[in-house]
């Protein structure tokens, strides 16, 4: 039985209300309904981390949350955090350290990395690796990504 549910959420600071099919996950909603294509869909079953977004201030897998479950929530995507300049230092470091090649994992990687920077003052390389362990990169081998995150931590 198809069912659409009236849902209101705040996406990157703007309130949106839509009637959303129950089966649509949050990233499909963001990409297809709102045109926010920065959050990527890799595996769609919670393994790759390319769809990492923030819901009520905490990172989640956007493909493992129904859009209707975001009713009343604050949702922040890579677009919002880029515009607000919250990710500025990380983005610069990723660029300088060559921490991306194809760029598919980068939005999710930045969301996960920024989450670590907000929670820990001086995480070491092991902690960085642990925190991005749920984000797969198939190009870089992670070394450059960890270097970039470390660069931001140690200035």
């Amino acid at each position: 039985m198809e069912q659409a549910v009236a849902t209101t959420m705040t996406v990157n600071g703007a309130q949106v209300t839509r009637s959303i099919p129950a089966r649509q996950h949050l990233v499909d909603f963001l990409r297809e309904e709102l045109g926010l294509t920065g959050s990527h869909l890799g595996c769609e079953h919670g393994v790759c981390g390319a769809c990492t977004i923030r819901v009520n201030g905490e990172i989640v897998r956007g493909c493992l949350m129904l859009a209707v479950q975001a009713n009343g929530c604050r949702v922040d995507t890579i677009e919002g955090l880029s515009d607000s300049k919250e990710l500025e230092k990380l983005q610069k470091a990723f660029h300088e350290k060559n921490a991306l090649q194809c760029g598919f994992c980068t939005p999710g990687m930045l969301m996960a990395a920024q989450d670590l920077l907000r929670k820990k003052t001086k995480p070491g390389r092991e902690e960085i690796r642990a925190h991005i362990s749920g984000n797969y990169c198939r190009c870089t081998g992670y070394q450059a990504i960890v270097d970039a995150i470390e660069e931001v931590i140690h200035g």
Partner: protein
Amino acid sequence: MKAPSFAYAKPRSLAEAFDLLERPGAKVLAGGQSLIPSLNLRLSSPELLVDITGLSGLNNIELGNGAVRIGALCTHSEVEKSEPVRKHLPLVAEAVAHIAHPAIRNRGTLGGSLALADPAAELPACALALDAVLIIAGKKGERRVSAGEFFKALFETDLKPAELLVGVEFPQADKSVFLELTRRLGDYAIVGLAGVTRSAQKRICFFGIGGMPVLLRPKSLEEAKSSLPTPSADLYHSASTKLHLAKVLLERAWNKL
């Protein structure tokens, strides 16, 4: 892939939830970190998802009578950060840090993990090792079931249709140790061990070795080793590799208990 079509309801009270769960094809949705992948992979096709995350009173963590009671809707992250859990239930605090990755721990719930009863999951093994009591609510009221009675078989529990797991009481232990071997951080266990000592009795629960977690109450290390069942092989590890690794974990754990 995309999930099949289903209807969605978010009850505001337990009574409303029980009514909804009596409908044909109804399934409980909590954190959704196992259910939504199974929907996206089309391994599951419920007609109605009953989202219980709007129910109040199911996400408290309370200490009392030598036990910590954790509400079923507490996320793994909330359990991981909880002071009473870290202080009085170090086994559970250590175990939740092994569950998947931070973004998944922010949504996945304690109740969801136990109600799913994945044989390679951390929390069912902790519940068995600690001899936890699961609190189940239904239309007729609440009932209490010990972890040993709750887990019935592979992905099967004592939960009846239209019942909800609402909380778990974990009795404290004198000592505990949690060990898990994985190929990559956050993966399901190749082999894992949740062990406790209470009143000089050791309770050691293995997970990832078969269709259910296996609880041993050994008197000696040798007895423990010889009473380990032959594990089932998985895609990457033979039964003999898993048995060897289980014995390695047992040796590492033994002197800490």
